[in-house]
Every structure is written in C-alpha cells, then in structure tokens.
C-alpha cells in the first residue's frame, strides 16, 4: 500500500526533558491513523515535528517522499495542520480568517473565494461566516480551526486533539466531518487521549506514552495483545479514595491489574463472571459502596492498561 507519512526514529529533547523518544510509524494513503496517549505523552511534539515547526533532535520523516528536515517547504504545501489550541484571529470573521489562511498558502482571487465558500459549507458555518470569531462558541471556533487547515486541500491532515473542551454535540459534528473527509480520500493523522474517539475513527492506532510509541496496529491487532482479558469497571462513591480501593481489589484472586481514575476502578481479568462475586464481597467487607459495574470486552483502554499498568484519563 502507498505510504504517505513515514516517521523514522523521531526524537525531541528539551535539555533533560525527553518529549519524544525514537518514534517510528507509517501512515498509508487514505487511512485515519490515531496517536492515542495521555496528557504529556508527546502527541503535540510529534505533530509539530511532522509539520516542520520543530526540528527533531534526531530522526527524520518523509511526507509524500519529501524530508521534513531537508525539504520543509515542499512538506508544508502537502500537509494541513489543525493545532491543539485554536490559532485564529478573534477580531476577524470566519470568512476573513479563512481568506487570510488561504493567502498564506498562495491562493488568491476567484479560486480563493470559491474555496472559502466550500470550506464554510463543509464546517457548517455559511450562515455565521460574516460574524467576528469572538462572538462564536468554543465548538464553532474549533470548526473554523479545522476549516483553516483544509483551505488549501492538503493531502494529509494533522488534527491535534480537535475535540478538547467542547460540548458533545460539537464533538459529534467534528468526528462526523473527519469521517466524511476521510471518505472523500483525505489521509488523517489524529491525536487524542479519548480512547473511544480512536476506536471509532481509526484504521490503525499508535499508543504513545512518556514520549515512546508502545504499541502500533489495527484495533484487532492491539486487543489481541491483551489476549482474552476483560475489563471490569466499578463506579464508586465520590468520597472514597479510589487508589486505596484499587489496592484493596488487587489481592482478590483472578484480578490481574487494578487501576483508579477519578471514581472508577478498572480491573482486568480472564473471566469477568468469576471475580464478580469476590469483588462485591470484598467491597462489602470494607464498607465501600459500588454504584454500578460494567463489563467490557477487550478494547484500547484495556490495551493501555495492560501495557502501562495505568488507565488513560478520560
């Protein structure tokens, strides 16, 4: 298959801080590739290197055959970048923003106007196009932020956590438009710390933690690593200390791993039914109230848990 992005041994060090360490992966033309990882994992740093903003401390990447270090100008024309933080001019309207970014890619005249109209329709903001961005909601700004990355019809789109901090409706709209773009042939590199997003969108996933790529493959390939494990999610009361409760369950026979995020405890096991009764009994023993219990088939969260012993925060 045709490979469009090829990252080879990317490293980025800031003094003693290792932001990215020896990251290699390939993205095939036409696929959605997700980088899944918790806060500070190195997702933004990886995208910034690939988009020629930072030079890697070591390593290189080829995008459509052009080296990001030796031929950044060619790379910039091929890629579209949607930064994690909204990078737009609040005092300009959505249309003016898109026109400006179009001009930075060398578009002009009629072609530019037509393209701006197309993008506005695509992000569903044709009606509000002539209002200043500062009157927009967070979700609408996110959409314009994506639109600005699409203006020059890039071959590959880099989306860095495009759904952070917005309402479920806008999030849905963004996920749907990413799928739609991909259906029309766009290759997408998508970073997120929401495992459901990675699960819903991607053909292949790279899991990144502490700057290192710890797993790579299709979702089926990744979950196979976990084997036949299942995950038990226990929702506990707000006044319980989740860490203590998690430690408490570690000793229950059949529990392979136990971890805590907020007020949820994730337990991995071979057979969920077998540990259900002892877990509930142990909770009763210690006076811990369990609000509800979910049993999950192997998923990316289980993979992350399996590989790191921690749960991804979401």
């Amino acid at each position, binding site marked *: 298959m045709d490979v469009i992005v090829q990252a080879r041994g990317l490293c980025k060090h800031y003094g003693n801080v290792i932001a990215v360490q020896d990251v290699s992966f390939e993205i095939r033309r036409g696929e959605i590739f997700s980088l899944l990882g918790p806060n500070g994992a190195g997702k933004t740093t990886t995208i910034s290197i690939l988009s020629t903003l930072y030079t890697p401390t070591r390593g290189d990447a080829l995008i459509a055959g052009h080296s990001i270090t030796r031929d950044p100008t060619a790379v910039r024309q091929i890629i579209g*970048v949607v930064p994690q933080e909204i990078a737009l001019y609040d005092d300009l309207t959505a249309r003016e923003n898109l026109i400006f970014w179009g001009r*930075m890619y060398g578009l002009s005249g009629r072609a530019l106007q037509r393209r701006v109209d197309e993008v506005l329709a695509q992000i569903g903001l044709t009606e509000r196009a002539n209002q200043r961005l500062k009157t927009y909601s967070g979700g609408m700004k996110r959409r314009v932020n994506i639109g600005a990355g699409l203006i020059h019809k890039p071959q590959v789109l880099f989306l860095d956590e495009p759904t952070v901090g917005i309402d479920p409706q806008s999030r849905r709209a963004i996920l749907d438009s990413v799928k739609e773009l991909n259906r029309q042939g766009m290759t997408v590199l998508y970073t997120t710390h929401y495992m459901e997003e990675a699960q819903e969108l991607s053909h292949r996933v790279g899991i990144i933690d502490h700057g290192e790529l710890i797993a790579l493959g299709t979702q089926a390939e990744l979950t196979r690593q976990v084997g036949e494990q299942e995950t038990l999610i226990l929702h506990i009361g707000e006044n319980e200390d989740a860490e203590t409760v998690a430690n408490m369950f570690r000793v229950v026979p059949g529990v392979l791993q136990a971890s805590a995020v907020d007020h949820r405890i994730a337990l991995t096991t071979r057979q969920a039914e077998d540990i259900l009764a002892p877990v509930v009994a142990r909770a009763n023993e210690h006076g811990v109230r369990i609000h509800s219990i979910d049993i999950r088939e192997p998923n990316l969260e289980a993979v992350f848990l399996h590989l790191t012993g921690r749960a991804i925060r979401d």
Partner: protein
Amino acid sequence: MKKLMWIGLKDIQLMLRDRTALIFMLLAPFLLTIGLGLVTGQLGGGNFGGLEAIPIAIVNQDQGKLGGALVEMVQSPELAELVNTSLVAEAGAARDQVDANQIAAAIIVPPGFSDSIIPRDGRPVPAQVVRIEVYKNPARPVSAGIVQALVEGFISRVETGRVTGEVIVRQALAAGLITPQDMPAFAAALSERLTATATDQPLMRLRTGTTEGSAPEQNTPSDFNPMAYMAPGMALLFLMFTVSNGGRSLLAEQAHGTLHRVLVSPTTGTQVLVGKLIGTYLTGTLQMLILIAASSLLFNLRWGDPLGVLVLILACVFGALGWGMLITVLARTAGQVAIAGSAVMLIFGILGGSFIQLNLLPTWFQWLSKLTPNAWGLDGFTILGLGGRWSDLGQPVLGLLTMGVVLGALSIALFNRRRLWQR
C-alpha cells in the same frame, strides 16, 4: 511579495478593529493636545510654554542700506519677544558666542551685501549675490531654525524686489522710458523702495502666546492657537505607541499560536516579520496623516509644505519603527512590550520635547533628546511650520533615517541570536 502585503494588511485590519488601540492612536493625542493646550495657554499667561526670547547676535559689515534694514528688523519691537539681539562688531566674536552656547545663532552680513543687490552709481550688479551667513548653534536647532527662517524670509523679499526691479529697469530701457544717463537716479529710487519693502512688514510677529511652531503667515493675534506646538508633539508621542503595539502584536501572535500556524504554511519567518513591519509602518503613517489632517480641520493649524509634511512623516515613522523593533526584540512577552512601550513612549515624550520645550533645558539634555524620534520630528515640524520646504528637512530626515537603520540592524542582529520561535 504579495504575502507580505497580506500579512501587513491583516495587521492593519486588526488594529482598526481594536478599540483600545484606536483610542490610543487617534483620540488620546487629540484630547491631550486640547487639554495641554488649554492648560499651558492659561498658565503661561500669554508667554506660551515659558518661551523666552532667543538670544542672537548680528554683525553688520555691510555699508549699504540692506544690512541696516536687516539690523533694524531683528531689533524691531515686533520681534522683541521672539529674539533678543545684540549688535556685535566682529564676526569672530559672534561665532565664539555661539560656540560657547551663549546664543542660539549669529547673523553675519558680509561687506558688499547691498552692493551685490542694488545697483549703485550705474555700476552693474555682480552676477553672484553676496550671502548672509547664519552661524547656528547645533545644540539649539529649533531656535537656530527660527533665526534662519527670519533671515531667509528677509532675503527672499529682497530677491523678489531685486528681480522685479531689474525687470522694470530693463523694460524701461527697452521701451525708451529711461536713458542710460538716467540710471543712477533711477537706481537710487529703486533702492529706496527695495529697502522699504524688505522691512515693510515684520516677517514674524510674536503676538501674545505665539509659539515657535505657529506659522508666520498667521495674520491676526486672535488666530493664535497653543495647539500648534502641542499637536505635532502629541502626534509623535503616540506614534511611539503605534510602533510598540506592532511589536506587541508579533509576540501576541506567538503566544496565541497564529505565528506557529503561519510558519507551518509555505510562509517563512522573514516574510512574517517583514509583513508585520510593513503593516506597522503603514499604520503609523496613517495615524500621523489622520492626526495632521484632523488638526488642520478642527484647530485650523497650518503644518506647512504638504510634500515636506509627507516626507517628514515617512521619516518619523521609520525612525520610531527602529525603536519599536528594539523593544520587541528585548522583550519576552506581549505584556512586556506593552509596558516597555508605554514607558519608552513617556520618556521619549519628555526627552523629545513633546511636553517641555527643549531649548529651555541644559545642553546635555538636548543632545540626549537626539536619541528620540520625537526631537527630530519636532525639529522638522518646526522648520515646516516656519515656512520651510521639504528640501530644508535634510537634518531631521537624515537623523531619523539613521536612527531607523541603526536600531533596525541592531534588532535584527539580536533577533538572530535569540529566536522568537523555538525550533
């Protein structure tokens, strides 16, 4: 190339939508001009801004009538509040007084000045007019400029008279109205008239409250406007705001992520910087033009030769931009630029004579003021206000251009050492 313009235009567009910036750029200078104008006009009790008569010396080595006429003019009661003239016999002594910073300028009328203009005893006048020398004190450019303007005004009247006189004589000869024998008598009559015209009206009247900056052609005392000195000073003061605001916007774009976004498009960092410089330059120019046009209309101020005003504005913004660049390169955040910018704006305002007239201050202070675009700009506007042309702006324009080039080069050198965006 086009991209540079788009980046600059985007900045102008943003500036025009930023109400705070607009208030600082356009409204504040106006209000301060009016406010300070009123305050100084009242407190000064008619002696605007504590303006003192400029000490000058005149050396008259001319035996003819014109030299005497000039002496008479500079000593006339009408000019008594503007210049304080002492008559000195020796040119060397007068120059020494200037060098010792005792006086602002020495006017030296060389021997044969009148003879080079008025035909005497039928002798034809030499082709070359003997020049009056104005020996200026570089530490008091504004005062010296006024003296220069006085002398030039006098000469231009004499010149007009001489040329029309010659034409009349030639025509009269050609028409047979006079014979060559009549010439001496005719010339004598002509010389009388010439001397009379030259001293006819004082070139510059100092009325109650008249300032250095007020245009000489103002006719009645009621015309006088204390804003005439304040308006250019305030325009230059807030020009410093505009240039530092340009630098602020660069750092704000860095913090806001739009700078990074431009840099991942096929646009280079140099293009961004040059584009933003163009934008800031045009904004500053626009600001000055608007302030000048508006004050001409509202306060009825005359700024002088329009071409000169334009040349001076372009030079002022260039010089100020140099400082804007330096402030931006030295600061780390947009907030720091804003704070440093306001501080520099005020210091330059004081140092550069936007509030206090420089010739009242010690010499070292006047030299220090040359570091500010405000001082050079005010010199220039004073020259224009006194009737100077764009070609008389050599010194201030050169000063401002040098300032812009030196500070710009320094900023670029510093900038290359400390990159604004990390890589």
